[in-house]
């Protein structure tokens, strides 16, 4: 079923249309991409255009994979508001990114050999995300990394 997004506008007040949490396990390669698929499916049913959907799917997949490969696990929070903004928040439990500047450099990767065998570790994750989203905010410390990315869906 498709819901036209244009009908969502409410009298200037912020109405959250979707707010959902997803749990990410450390090194759960077998399920990698599952959350991205669910989010893509949900947004597709809500009538998000295919171009925006493509950008969200790419970014979400890369961030989900990053958490699986590099973090101790964490969660993804999807928020879609009637202001026409889709926000994805990826929060993990550490160990943090040593050097954000290097991590943002295409081709640079700290992925282990086990991850590379599966075709991960191209060093294109964060650059792919940055290129595809409208808003990008990355904060990190040894206690955890939080990546918040936003997309205009209207």
């Amino acid at each position, binding site marked *: 079923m498709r819901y036209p997004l244009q009908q969502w506008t409410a009298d200037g007040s912020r109405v959250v249309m979707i707010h959902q949490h997803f749990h990410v396990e450390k090194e759960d*390669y*077998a399920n*990698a*991409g*599952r959350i*991205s*698929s669910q989010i*893509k499916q949900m947004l597709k049913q809500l009538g998000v255009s295919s171009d925006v959907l*493509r950008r969200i*799917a*790419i970014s979400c*997949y*890369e961030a989900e*994979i990053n958490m699986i490969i590099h973090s101790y696990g964490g969660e993804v929070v999807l928020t879609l508001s009637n202001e026409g903004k889709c926000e994805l928040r990826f929060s993990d439990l550490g160990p943090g990114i040593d050097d954000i500047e290097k991590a943002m450099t295409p081709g640079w990767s700290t992925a282990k050999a086990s991850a590379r065998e*599966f*075709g*991960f*570790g*191209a*060093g*294109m*994750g964060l*650059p*792919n995300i940055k*290129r595809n989203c409208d808003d990008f905010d990355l904060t990190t410390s040894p206690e955890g990394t939080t990546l918040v990315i936003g997309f205009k869906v209207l």
Partner: protein
Amino acid sequence: MKASLLIEKYGFEKISDSSADFEIGSAFVGDLLSWVMGHAKSNDAWITILGHPNIIAVALLRELACVIIAHDAQIQQETIAKANEEDFLILKSPLSAFEISKILISEGV
């Protein structure tokens, strides 16, 4: 060209249950998932040697047409099961990615 031509004319092996009765418009060669996510186009046939189930996740998210496994590379049972679940086509060939690309080009892809 239709994906089914690769089976009928060139002997590619169909290893998932999905139909091959659809057109391949273009193709992409790559064995790094993020590279494929970042650069492949919707409806591309993806030529790779990766056999891990994540190729299906990437292919579906990126809306690729099918996966063609080159060099008869090993493919995991979970990958085939996932492709069947999603009605997604996987083909396999002993040829290299280059030789598969040449076939696609010669058939007008």
